[in-house]
């Protein structure tokens, strides 16, 4: 069951530029296990939308099936949501986006949903560069069906039952970069300071933005020997850089010296600032991040932060040359050629 939260607004709650409080971005009460990483990601989404001043009803939240895919019920209750079928959220998102280019599309999926049953759709939504944010709540297992290994479980990772995973884990970030993704980030549900600006940057990106968030399953995959447990991820997390997101129009203040930071201006004029950069990598250089990811895997490190961004990104609508007016708002006279034209067509068929 879902529980509706009481709609009580404290008059002194802070408001964003649109006049909304954080509460306006929340959803119903979560029914996930206490401590589940997915709930922290929901909270980060609420925070990011609040800070980014998005109008809640201008967001469409979409998901597949899984514990992770339930979360859209737990944030943005003023947004339309679509909990589709297992592994098929990308196609729903593609159709919805084609119908109306004016909304923000926020897709949420699990590692089972994206890397197993939905791998085909995941791969193709990446290469179509659909303008959407795609968050994978990655716990290395199938939470909802009680803890079976997923395809992102690392080889050798120990399950709750004590078995080692036999097969190579799929790294969705490397795969997405290979496929031509234009925004790829990795984060940890326990690192809100990093995750919130990443979600904000992803929402400002024009094109497909993947955030693979390690999100431990406390019930089935948080045991010693698991490479997706809280403890393991905390110990092996290697943040590439500190990260700030400065929305359009906000004042840019500096905490770090020039040279120690890189600023990436997003399409909409907002700025993503990376501080204390690891100098072996440049987020706009694909080869450098591929090398960094390979090295980190050998060293059993988990690289987090913005991994890659292509600012020349051309989203699907532009590639298809669709009109600026959302297709769902075209009027009948723009859609229907009328009877005169039809007479001409008939004449050509005699």
């Amino acid at each position, binding site marked *: 069951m879902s529980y509706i939260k009481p709609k009580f607004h404290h008059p002194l709650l802070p408001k964003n530029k649109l006049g909304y409080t954080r509460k306006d971005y929340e959803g119903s009460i979560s029914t996930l296990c206490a401590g589940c990483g997915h709930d922290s990601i929901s909270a980060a989404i609420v925070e990011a939308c609040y800070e980014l001043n998005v109008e809640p009803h*201008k967001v469409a939240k979409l998901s597949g099936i899984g514990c992770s895919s339930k979360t859209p*019920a737990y944030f943005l209750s003023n*947004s*339309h949501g679509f909990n589709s079928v297992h592994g098929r959220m990308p*196609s729903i998102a593609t159709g919805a986006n084609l119908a109306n280019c004016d*909304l923000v599309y926020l897709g949420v999926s699990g590692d089972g949903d994206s890397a197993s049953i939905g791998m085909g759709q995941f791969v193709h939504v990446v290469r179509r560069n659909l303008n959407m944010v795609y968050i994978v709540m990655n716990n290395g297992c199938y939470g909802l069906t009680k803890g079976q290994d997923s395809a992102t479980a690392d080889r050798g990772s120990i399950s709750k039952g004590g078995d080692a995973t036999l097969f190579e884990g799929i790294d969705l970030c490397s795969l997405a970069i290979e496929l031509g993704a234009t925004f790829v980030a990795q984060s940890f549900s326990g690192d809100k300071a990093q995750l919130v600006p990443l979600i904000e940057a992803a929402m400002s990106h024009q094109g497909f933005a993947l955030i693979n968030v390690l999100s431990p399953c406390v019930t089935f995959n948080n045991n010693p020997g698991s490479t997706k447990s809280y403890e393991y991820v905390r110990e092996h997390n290697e943040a590439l850089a500190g990260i700030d997101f400065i929305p359009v129009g906000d004042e840019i203040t500096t905490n770090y010296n020039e040279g120690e930071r890189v600023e990436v201006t997003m399409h909409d004029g907002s700025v993503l600032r990376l501080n204390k950069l690891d100098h072996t990598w440049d987020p706009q250089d694909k080869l450098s991040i591929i090398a960094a990811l390979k090295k980190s895997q050998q060293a059993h490190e988990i690289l987090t932060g913005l991994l890659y961004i292509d600012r020349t990104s051309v989203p699907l609508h532009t590639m298809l040359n669709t*009109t*600026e007016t959302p297709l769902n708002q075209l009027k009948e006279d723009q859609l229907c050629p009328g009877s005169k034209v039809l007479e001409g067509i008939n004449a050509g*068929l005699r």
Partner: protein
Amino acid sequence: MFSSTMSSINDFVVRFANVNGTGSASANLLFAKSIFRMGVPIAPKNIFPSNIQGLPTWYEVRVSEKGYLGRRAGIDLMVSMNPQSMKKDVESVRPGGYFFYDSTKPLQESFIREDIHYIGVPLMEICNREYTDARQKQLFKNIVYVGALAVLLSIEFEVLETLLKEQFKGKEKLVAPNVKALNLGADYIREHYSFPLDFHVERRDLVGDMILIDGNSAAGLGAVYAGASVVSWYPITPSTSLVSAFEEYARELRVDPVTGKNNYAIVQAEDELSAIGMAIGANWNGARSFTATSGPGVSLMSEFLGLAYYAEIPVVLVDVQRAGPSTGMPTRTQQSDILSAAYASHGDTKQVLLFPSTPKECFDMMADAFDLAEQLQTPVIMLTDLDLGMNDNLSAPFQWDDARAYQRGKVLSAEELENAKTRWGRYLDIDGDGVPYRTLPGTHPTKGAYFTRGTSHDEYAVYSEDSDTYVRIMERLLVKLNTAKKLVPAPEFYQDGKQSDTGIVFIGTTTHSARESLDQLKAQGIPCDAMRLRAFPFNEDVAAFIQDHDRVFVIEQNRDAQLRSLLVNELDINPSKMIKVLNFDGTPITADFISSSILKSLTTV
């Protein structure tokens, strides 16, 4: 048995045996269209393999003064251009018929039958003499045989020339050499054979303003008129040309003249699951969207069709049926997805189906499909087949009423949400017709948002595992199905009231042959009443017709009598009075087959 009633003028079947990929298609179309232009009804059919080049293909043209457009067995004139299939082609000529062949090389002894006539024209020799370029030799060979046939069958040369001029508009240089090729064939016949044949063409005024087009193109055009703006698809014969047609018409008719931008989007999906998912996502978001597929695609789409049914999302799907199961005979026709479409997806589902039988109906029903899908907030599946989809069909012309407004169904605007007096519920049945009100994303800042899901939900779209709630929603979906019965196209009857104790029932492309069979049976003193179904769910008229008749022949093109099963199941009919007439060999059903099946059954009763 029935072919003896045939008259020799404007009543015959010509079959062309060609090799796939040799450019014969346009020559054959030239032949067929010239007869059409002479005012005589024709029914052309392609019989082709699942292959791109090298295998045998056939093209069959039935010429019918009476306007019978179904297939007729028995070949009167075989045009044999394929050595590979020659043995079979010789055998398929009816006794007394003609075998037209390239006599550059002598015919093999074993191909000689005593009971048929042979017409040899040295096509290759003529082309070798007249043309130097190898490609031209091949292409003009086709035109040379059209010229020869024109003399044999009294086809007017001016008509052929006009057609060539139209075909090569903008490339006028090509007209003269083509006309020359026609004459080479014609002259050879005039010098060596008596003509015309005992059966041939005579100019008539029987086709009026009718048009010649394939059902897929008609449906593609219908989707443009219906306002479809998002199309997703995955290639599969015989549905591919439907989306291609949509794309061609949209390029012509849907590009903004000022900005040059497209008022439509087409995505070739990675598979059928994705194709239907995109169509559902777009419709959920308020754009009219469809996908087209064939049987294997319907199997893959079924999970999503269940979601759209249960979450009540409009979507339009065209299933151009082919012979199953599995990959089956991918280039042969059947009506064998009736049950898998009607009950598509697991759990209790019933989907709305439309059964067009002509290109005009493909066009019209495409528009109806979008109206119905949005009015009912449910999938609508239009079931055509390869025979209708991929063959040129003689059809009444397309019509569009400019006063027709799209029926967008119950979608709440921002004002309506703002002014609502009571709490809105996505799945609340306010009007008692089983159809709730929906909202589109982005409509109102604080009202109308809801969570679409395939899990059990209450009237307010909130997740619920409460049994009463579940049952209530499932039963309301049946109320909606009753509403659908009033909205879907009504059955068509071919008589006033009841005339006979025997009824026949059919759908789609069975119609032409079934109607011809009605004439045949009547001529034998057995008049029958007939009903053509145009949609599922079946309404009261359908039930009443079956009730009123002692025996009902259900004529269809599949092995398992799927239409009969659906009727029996949905209308609670005693199956014993429902008699199966089944053709499922992959070729279109014929009137002779239907008549003899019915006669046999009536005499053994």
